[in-house]
């Protein structure tokens, strides 16, 4: 295997991980602040992708498409929070799981009803199509590189927002003591809506960005949602830093597992069965990673026991 291919796959793993981070950050923030497990987060990802694909096909502008994805997902998130989610904060996890599962059904079938079952396509913007040559002679897709850049910028922005602004202070206070922050006169229900809409916007952004390299279709959100769950279980629920580290770990494990494991089995098996054994194990690799992390640290890498 050439070193160039390996480097390219590492970049692919990073890009995948960064996109997972956008999903996982919202999930972990919502869980940390409101104590809510939100299965419908994947539906918000899908909402962002559909909004972007629709706006891009009308206006032809990718920037407008991204703005539309952010607005649509945040608006859908805020709406769902006010109508349904708000009633679930005090409920137990079982009710939260079911109600948000019900929301997935409504979102998925609603989208199918509006847009039909056929996938939509969102094109990579012209300025970012094609590839660049990186130092060391690695040729890599410019768009995927841009995804890594955007993701890192969002991560930085999120860090500044949480650590250095008034809103971030309230969010952190809400994570550690909900009643106290309400007693200090912070409008907790508006804060919750804002946090939920923020998480939704991140998911919508990820959906739109990934939508340009995959097809935009009903049900696209759930596989990503489950991976995002794995990410926050590994990182520790409620920790954004954990989500970041976990997302990169999962992204790299998934990509490199698919690349390395068939070769690894090839050392002691015949080629055909090595490929199938390798790809079977690669498809399970991130779950095995999760199991190992949990055996060592049951609360995740950066988690604290609630």
């Amino acid at each position, binding site marked *: 295997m050439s070193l160039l291919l390996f480097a390219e796959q590492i970049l692919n793993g990073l890009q995948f991980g960064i996109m997972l981070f956008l999903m996982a950050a919202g999930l972990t923030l919502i869980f940390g602040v409101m104590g809510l497990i939100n299965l419908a987060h994947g539906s918000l990802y899908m909402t962002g992708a559909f909004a972007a694909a629709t706006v891009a096909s009308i206006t032809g502008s990718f920037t407008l498409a991204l703005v539309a994805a952010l607005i649509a997902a945040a608006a859908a998130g805020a709406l769902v929070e006010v109508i*349904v989610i708000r009633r679930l904060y005090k409920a137990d996890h079982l009710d939260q799981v079911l109600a948000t*599962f*019900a929301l997935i059904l*409504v979102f998925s079938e609603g989208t199918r*009803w509006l847009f039909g079952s056929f996938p939509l396509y969102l094109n990579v913007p012209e300025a970012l199509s094609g590839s660049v040559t990186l130092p060391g002679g690695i040729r890599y897709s410019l768009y995927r590189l841009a995804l890594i850049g955007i993701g890192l910028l969002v991560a930085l922005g999120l860090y500044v927002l949480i650590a250095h602004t008034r809103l971030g202070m309230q969010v952190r206070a809400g994570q550690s003591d909900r009643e106290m922050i309400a007693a200090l006169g912070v409008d907790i229900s508006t804060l919750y809506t804002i946090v939920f809409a923020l998480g939704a916007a991140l998911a919508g952004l990820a959906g739109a960005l990934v939508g340009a390299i995959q097809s935009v279709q009903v049900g696209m959100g759930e596989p990503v949602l489950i991976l995002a769950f794995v990410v926050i279980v590994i990182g520790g629920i409620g920790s954004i830093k954990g989500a970041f580290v976990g997302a990169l770990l999962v992204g790299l494990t998934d990509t490199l597992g698919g690349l390395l494991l068939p070769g690894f089995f090839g050392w002691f098996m015949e080629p055909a069965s090595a490929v199938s054994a390798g790809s079977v194990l690669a498809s399970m690799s991130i779950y095995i990673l999760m199991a190992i992390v949990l055996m060592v640290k049951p609360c995740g890498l950066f988690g604290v026991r609630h």
Partner: protein
Amino acid sequence: MNRETLLNLLLLCVLLAVPVWAHAAEEPFIITLVTRALIFAIAGIGLNMALGQGGLVSLGHAMFFGLGGYSMGILASHAQTYTPLFEWPILLEGSNSMPVIWITAIAVAGLAALITGQLSLRTSGVYFIMITLAFGQMFYYFAVSWPAYGGDDGLSIYVRNEFPGLNTLDPIQFFAIVFALLIAVLMLAAAVARSPFGLALNAARQSPARVEAVGISPYRLRLLVYVLSGMITGLAGALFADLNRFVSPSMFSWQTSGEIMMFVILGGVARLCGPVVGATVFIALEHFLGGLSDYWQIYLGVLLLVIVLFARGGLVGLVAGKQQAHD
């Protein structure tokens, strides 16, 4: 006899009477529909043990359902082609006998529950939900990427497996088998709920610290109920595969886990016949709403939302009152 017991008996009588009538009226489709509901009910009873008795919110029961299904698929496909499963270290042949398949399905699902349970039960609350979901998904991808048994396309079995003395291809006879198993599983669930084990488990759900203080390990109770629960759902998976004569990775999908959980919740958590009510209502909705609109799951979603937000205790709770409701 309280209202819930009366309701349960009435429900079982209806579920028995409808297929018998359909058989007389020569409507095999209705018999198959009811059979499907009963199989889902068995899967739900499995989950209800872990969820209602043990308080374990497992979102990965599709794992056991799928393992049961693939136990049937793998054994029957080898029996179909007369090739052994493996010849080393011992010769193992396929089988098309239902009892053998059921026992295999129960054993495989129980073993999977024992292994994943030891890992998942180290955690609790929301971690447990996500981990069971992830384990279910792991098996899903395993089934998709494993080419030997159909991979993504699944596996078709041409003839339904055999049960001594019965013609299983006759819908009413297959229904009779499933109905008998449902009654057996219901009796088992009722016996477990009343047993010292069931009582200790209930106590461990409500107050683990106190149970631990009297010298019982909540972890071991939970692991045991998780294994038991997985076994029952595995049996349902084998029956479901036999009903369709087809297995595919979608049996492992997280939607299946969500649906099994829905049967439990629609009916009412920790109610003996809750999953039977839930599965029957689900199949009825699928049949009638599905006939009205292709997008019937929107209505299903809204119904589920209304039940979760406003009718805690499920449909059985609505009819039978709260006397049996837990915490």
